[in-house]
């Protein structure tokens, strides 16, 4: 079995085992920490599809993360007091309603943003995705009904039929299953015709066109799908924290999601999970000593970019295999 597959399995097992053990020991904190890792990994997995597999340097993915969060938050807000959103839609506290809704809205926004942004290339693309994210950020903090700059609290955990979602281990299981399904579907996608076209779009757009495939629809689809995955992560994050913070929409958040993708290994299927584990570990361990822990994150990131470009999975599993 290839080294990468073994590494992937180890990561998945580690993520699954840790909260199970913690639960048995009564350490709720670590169960919630594992949920956080899974959600962060999901957000990064979304970006990985656009960035790692599609070669699209989107510096505004936090916008989709925040959109997912705000969908969950606004839905909860209206569910609590029975009011209607924009006078039309009722709220909801059901996961099976909120998840598709978060993905849909994030996807629609990404369709618009992507359609305009993909008319540009290179550094212009990076800047325009950042600009759109900033627009959405300022829009988000301008809604006083939904918390403005202070953010929005969610008082009840969203419901899933047959499951006590308030229980930390149950919630972790939900996030873990969602993450694994997302990674599995991404894997299938990348092995299929779409993935072949997307890989070529990243490696050599001219070659893709010369092969008779229009690059832009492929890239736009990847962008939209990636936004939907990150949006779903945002909804889950809001649920975990019971709070939607405008910081979820900030460019700094975009940068962090990107850092996680890179730390784990850009373009690798389980890179986001490796990166998320690394990131949360650093935050928990070093962050415990100093609030300036991101100083060290910066150093590590710099080191990875300069010397270990393949990230953690690159170091463990060697060069990516292509056939």
């Amino acid at each position, binding site marked *: 079995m290839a080294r990468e597959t073994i590494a992937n399995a180890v990561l998945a097992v580690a993520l699954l085992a840790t909260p199970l053990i913690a639960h048995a020991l009564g350490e709720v904190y670590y169960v919630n920490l594992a949920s956080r890792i899974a959600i962060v990994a999901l957000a990064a997995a979304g970006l990985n599809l656009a*960035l790692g597999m599609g070669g699209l*340097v989107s*510096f505004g993915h936090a916008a989709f993360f925040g959109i997912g969060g705000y969908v969950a938050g606004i839905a909860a807000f209206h569910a609590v007091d029975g009011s209607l959103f924009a006078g039309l839609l009722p709220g909801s506290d059901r996961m099976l309603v909120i998840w598709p809704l978060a993905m849909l809205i994030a996807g629609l926004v990404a369709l618009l943003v992507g359609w*305009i942004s993909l*008319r*540009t*290339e*290179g*550094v*212009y693309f*990076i*800047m*325009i995705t*950042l*600009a*759109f994210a*900033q*627009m959405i950020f*300022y*829009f988000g*903090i*301008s*809604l*006083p009904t939904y918390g*403005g700059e202070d953010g929005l609290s969610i008082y009840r955990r969203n419901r899933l039929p047959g499951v006590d979602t308030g229980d930390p281990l149950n919630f972790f299981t939900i996030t873990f299953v969602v993450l694994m399904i997302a990674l599995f579907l991404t894997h299938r996608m990348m092995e299929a015709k779409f993935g072949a076209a997307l890989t070529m779009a990243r490696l050599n757009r001219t070659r893709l066109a010369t092969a008779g495939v229009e690059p832009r629809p492929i890239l736009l689809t990847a962008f939209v799908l990636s936004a939907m995955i990150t949006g779903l992560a945002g909804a889950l994050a809001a649920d975990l924290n019971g709070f939607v913070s405008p910081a979820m929409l900030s*460019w*700094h958040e975009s*940068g962090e999601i*990107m*850092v996680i993708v*890179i730390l784990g290994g*850009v373009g690798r299927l389980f890179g986001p999970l490796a990166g998320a584990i690394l990131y949360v570990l650093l935050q928990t361990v070093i962050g415990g000593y*100093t*609030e*300036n*822990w*991101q*100083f060290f*994150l*910066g*150093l590590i*990131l*710099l080191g990875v*970019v*300069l010397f270990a*470009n393949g990230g953690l999975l690159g170091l463990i599993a060697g060069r990516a295999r292509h056939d």
Partner: protein
Amino acid sequence: MSSLLIELTLNGLQLGVMLLLMAAGLTLIFGVMGFINLAHGSLYMSGAFVTAYLSRTTGSFWLGLLAGVAAAAAIGAVVELLVVRRLYARDHLDQVLATFALILIFSNAARWIFGAAPLWLDVPPLLAGAVRLPGGGGYPVYRLVIIALGIAAAAGLYLLIARTRLGMRIRAGESDREMIAALGVDIAALYTMVFALGAALAGLAGAVIGALESVEVGMGEPVLILAFVVIVIGGIGSFKGALVGALLVGTVDTFGRIFLPAFFGLFLDPSAATSVGAALASMLIYLLMAVVLAVRPKGLFPAHG
């Protein structure tokens, strides 16, 4: 009303001129070295911090200002030597990530050294007064000085690029990197100088603005993003583009923040008008950029067509 208009125009000019200092450095660095420098905001912040700290300890604003600009240039040179020069051959993603890493490093280092509370930098007493505007109302002398300083710096930069040997090498480097190496120009030194120059401009902007707004960690990033919007609108790599873009963004942003809430106040209730107006005002610059890019995907005056 005309006093308000003059005041707004001056404010827009001031913002524009400060953005120009940032944008000129960014566009120079991208034009000559092909390098995206997200850490430019950190250089802006460094200038502000050093100026604030030294002004307080020596009691002299001017000494602090000098030190701030010099420190920013020095930090820029060191960053170029240690980090940036390894990334010229890399793709944009690596440059974005590495400079984002620098942002994290600088921001957290500043917080470690100076603490989380903002530093106060006072306007020097010499410049603390106000000038009477035609139509009544006073306008701070300091802001006028900033405008003058910014124009002087921009003019100085333009002359440097257009009239000096160094400027000639810079312009040559922008058009053909391999050629100037073949001509015997020390590329490495040139690049360090260009980077330090850009850093100095950023440090100057930060130091000077520091007296108007507070000097704190994270002050550089909003300006950085605006500066990027400026060079994208103007056309990356073009000084003329940076100039036009900076003035455009400075004016649109300043006027938008006053007039949009007022506009919405015409048919919405005051609190709704303020929030919608303020939100739209913040988004306005990005909308402007998106519109420009939709029509001209490489900005208004792309340097390389």
